[in-house]
Each structure stands twice: as structure tokens, then as C-alpha cells.
């Protein structure tokens, strides 16, 4: 990788003969760098770039640099020498001074990591520095942006307004959820496990009902009336678990809306493989939403030898 990089640089420099010697010295320089820590590798890379691009370079000064490497000079002394070397060009000193301050910090805690890394890089076939890549992956890998909007709004004859709010933020009270599960008739599960499951699910979609009385007090009554959640590996597969709607609000298309929104959020994230395990009485419900039972002979199995 080093050799490939160095071969690209000569094309940019203007004068051929000094750059030739520079290339040869930078090759030797890079060979010394193989066993070094990542930081010193970067610094020496910058140094070689600088040395090759400077017009006022003389082969003797490059040889001096090379000598420093051969005697295994300390990182800071190397930087000091390079600073003296490029003092003619003020721009480069400005660039290098923060590096000097930073290396002190880097040296202390990167020494251990660098040792194992150098061994690993020596063993691996292709070793490339990965300075730029990690931040971009973090940007792509975002949690789905939580949505919250009014799904249905009803006005009753006595004036109370009832709003049904859809939320995908997962802002659920676990006690409310436990009460809702009891209402639907599901077996009780430990609260701590429920809380952990909600926290670590990829998306938790919930429906709340807010009743506002017409009186001037404006007391709002907020109740949890539905929930659906999905676990995922954020890339390929997702499984929908625990879809439930309060029995008093069933039959209005709320469950359908919950699952549809969940699916849309998953597909938006390019997660194409969505599965679920449906009880016999709700197989038709999911079929109408676009799910197929036992597709291509794929079946789910559960572990019993625990």
C-alpha cells in the first residue's frame, strides 16, 4: 500500500532529478515505518508528501532525515527536525504545530494498541489505514427518526375530543404495556425483561388515545391502546413481535395501521426480509397486509433443548 501511494506522488512534483532521490529515500523511509504505530505512520506520510512537494529540497537534507530514521529517533525529535527543516515555509509549520501537541497525547495511550496493531498488520495480507471510513458508517447507521402524528380524531356528542396518536419513538411506560397485555389476555412476562426488550428493539410503534374534555380545565387523559415492535440487525432481517391493540379499540383498522407503518419504516431502511410468527386466528389479518405463510418452504423453529 505504501509503495502504491508513493508511486502516485512523483507525477505531481515538477522537478524530476531531486524527486528521484526523494522517491528512493521515501521508499526506505516507508520500510522503516511498517513496524511503527499508526500515528507515526500518518506523520511520516505527511512528511514525505511535504518533502516531495517542496521545490527548495536538496538531497542532502533528505538523507539527513533518513539518517534520523535509521538511528530510530524519537517521534518528537523527528518532528522537531522536520519543523526546523521546513521553517522557510510558514504555512507548513502552522500545519505541523498542532501535530506536535497531539503526538504527546497519542503516544501515551496508543502505544499499547499500536504494538498489537503492528503485529496484526504485519500478519494480514492487505493492510490499509482506516482513518476516513468509520465516521461515514456512523452517519448511515442512524436509528429511524421517531415520528409522532395524529392518526384519527373523533368528536363525541358531548363535546369531548378523542385523538389517537401514533408514535414510533418507543416512549412507552412498561407498566401500561403490562396492563394492556393483561387486557388482551396474554401471559405475564417479567417487567425487567419487557423493559429490556423494548429498549433494544429496532422500532417500537405505539398508539395512545388522548381524550380532551370540552371544559375549561383541559384535563387530558392519555392511555396506551396499541403497540407493535420489531427487532432487526439494521441491515437485512427484521422480525415483528408483540402486535396488540386494546379490545375496546379493535376492528377500526388501528392494528393494520400500526403494522403498515412499521413495515414502511423498515422498507425505508432497506431492510427487505421481514418475518413474523402469527397465531392461527391472525394469519388472515397478516395475509391481507402482504405477508405470505411458509414462503418457499421456509419455516420457523424454536429451541427446546435449553
Amino acid at each position: 500500500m505504501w509503495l502504491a501511494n508513493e508511486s502516485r506522488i512523483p507525477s505531481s512534483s515538477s522537478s524530476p532529478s531531486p524527486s528521484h532521490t526523494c522517491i528512493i529515500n521515501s521508499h526506505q523511509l516507508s520500510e522503516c515505518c511498517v513496524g511503527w504505530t499508526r500515528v507515526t505512520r500518518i506523520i511520516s506520510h505527511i512528511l514525505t508528501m511535504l518533502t516531495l512537494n517542496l521545490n527548495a529540497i536538496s538531497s542532502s537534507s533528505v538523507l539527513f532525515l533518513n539518517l534520523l530514521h535509521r538511528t530510530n529517533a524519537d517521534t518528537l525529535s523527528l518532528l522537531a527536525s522536520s519543523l526546523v527543516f521546513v521553517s522557510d515555509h510558514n504555512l507548513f509549520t502552522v500545519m505541523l504545530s498542532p501535530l506536535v501537541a497531539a503526538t504527546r497525547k497519542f503516544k501515551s495511550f496508543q502505544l499499547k494498541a499500536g504494538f498489537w496493531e503492528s503485529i496484526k498488520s504485519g500478519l494480514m495480507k492487505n493492510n490499509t489505514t482506516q482513518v476516513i471510513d468509520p465516521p461515514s458508517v456512523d452517519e448511515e447507521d442512524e436509528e429511524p427518526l421517531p415520528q409522532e402524528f395524529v392518526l384519527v380524531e373523533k368528536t363525541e356528542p358531548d363535546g369531548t375530543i378523542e385523538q389517537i396518536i401514533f408514535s414510533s419513538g418507543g416512549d412507552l411506560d412498561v407498566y401500561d404495556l403490562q396492563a394492556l397485555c393483561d387486557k388482551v389476555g396474554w401471559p405475564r412476562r417479567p417487567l425487567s425483561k419487557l423493559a429490556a426488550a423494548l429498549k433494544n428493539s429496532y422500532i417500537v410503534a405505539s398508539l395512545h388515545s388522548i381524550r380532551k374534555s370540552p371544559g375549561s380545565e383541559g384535563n387530558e387523559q392519555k392511555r396506551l391502546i396499541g403497540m407493535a415492535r420489531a427487532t432487526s440487525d439494521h441491515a437485512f432481517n427484521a422480525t415483528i413481535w408483540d402486535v396488540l391493540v386494546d379490545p375496546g379499540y379493535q376492528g377500526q383498522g388501528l392494528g393494520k395501521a400500526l403494522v403498515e407503518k412499521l413495515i414502511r419504516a423498515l422498507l425505508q431502511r432497506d431492510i427487505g426480509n421481514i418475518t413474523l410468527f402469527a397465531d392461527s386466528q391472525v394469519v388472515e389479518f397478516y395475509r391481507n397486509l402482504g405477508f405470505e405463510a411458509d414462503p418457499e418452504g421456509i419455516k420457523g423453529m424454536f429451541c427446546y433443548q435449553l
Partner: protein
Amino acid sequence: MVAIGLSRTQLQVTEGFASKSMELKWVRRRTTAKTLHLHNAKPLFPIYISTDPRHVDPQHLRDLFADCNRAFSTRPEHLHIRKLAVALSHSAVVVSVFCNLQHLNAVPNHNSSIADFFVPVSPFRDQLVGFGRAVSDYGLTASIYDVMVIPSLQRMGIGQMIVKKIVRMLTSRDVYDISVLCSENERLFFKACGFGDDILGSTTMMYTRTAPLTAPERE
């Protein structure tokens, strides 16, 4: 190398099981008359089973998928390396198996038998030959995906070893509802690992992106 850097930084952000272990195990090839003739190597050889996600290089993993002739997660999709790295970092359990294939296929040298006993099988130097992962919510449920072993090392108990390790890691975190999606020919394998059909009788359903045409007609 780039990919390993990616997964390492992601590990700092996401959660995972705290204990990461690497074990050296010995597997024995089932010697039938055919295999004795074909393979000159010793029937007993070491493999390295690891639960550390950082040992898996997504590029090698993609090659493993190709070797095992598996459509990825039972659906033929274009395997993007970055997506693989994301999936690995968000999997609760990642089990990988490494083996030094040169040692495997070489003619047995009886002089260096003791040295071979101590041969270190390392995740950095040796080939990824087996893999399995599970996605979980760390509370109630988990799903196992992509269990595979290269064809030349199949039928030796490596796959079962992988599944058993995944199950043990999940049960140590109190997750007992472990599911797996498998096709017809994998069903016997998972049955041997201790999996069975759902006692509650639930139906497995997958999203197919097209709602049935009969639904609007009915209404």
C-alpha cells in the same frame, strides 16, 4: 483490514455480550471408506471457534457465503460489504470458526506429530470456515441467522457446535425464546440441534411486498 476497522469502531457504539471467548476444539472427520481414500490428512484436526465479532472480516464472510452456495438469508440479494458490517455489529451473537486448511490437506508427517498438536490456529491467519449469528432484543426473543460451514468440512459436527454455542450464549443472558428460519433441507439439522416446531402452533410469515389482489375484491 478496512472492514475489521469498521466493525471495531461500531462495537464501541453498540451493545454486545460482554464475554468474548475463543476456544480451540478438535473435530474428527467421520471416516468412511470413501473419505479414507480421498483425504490423506489425519482425521483429527483443530479448529478455532470464536465469539468475538471483531474476528470476522466481512470480505471473507462474503466469500464464505459464496462457497456455501447460500442465497443470503434465504433471499438472493446483492451482498454489500458495508451492509454486512452493519449487520454484524448489530447482531447479539456472532460465532465464527477458523481452520488452517493447509495443515488439513497436507500429507501427514509423523515426525512432527507433537509440533502439530501445539499448532496454533489463529483467526488472523487461518480461513473462516464456519459462521453463525443471532439477533436479539436482550430480553425476550432471539433469532438465529446464517449458520453455515464450508462444504468440505461439513458433517463433522461443526455446525452443531456453532448452534449450541449461540444457544448457550443467549441462555446465559436469560433469553429463552430462540427462533430460527430454515428451509426444508435444513430442518433435520436444526432438529438435531434441539429445535422443533412451535408448540403454540404459530405460522411463519414473510413479507412479500405485494398485497394479495383478492383483498379489495372481497370488500
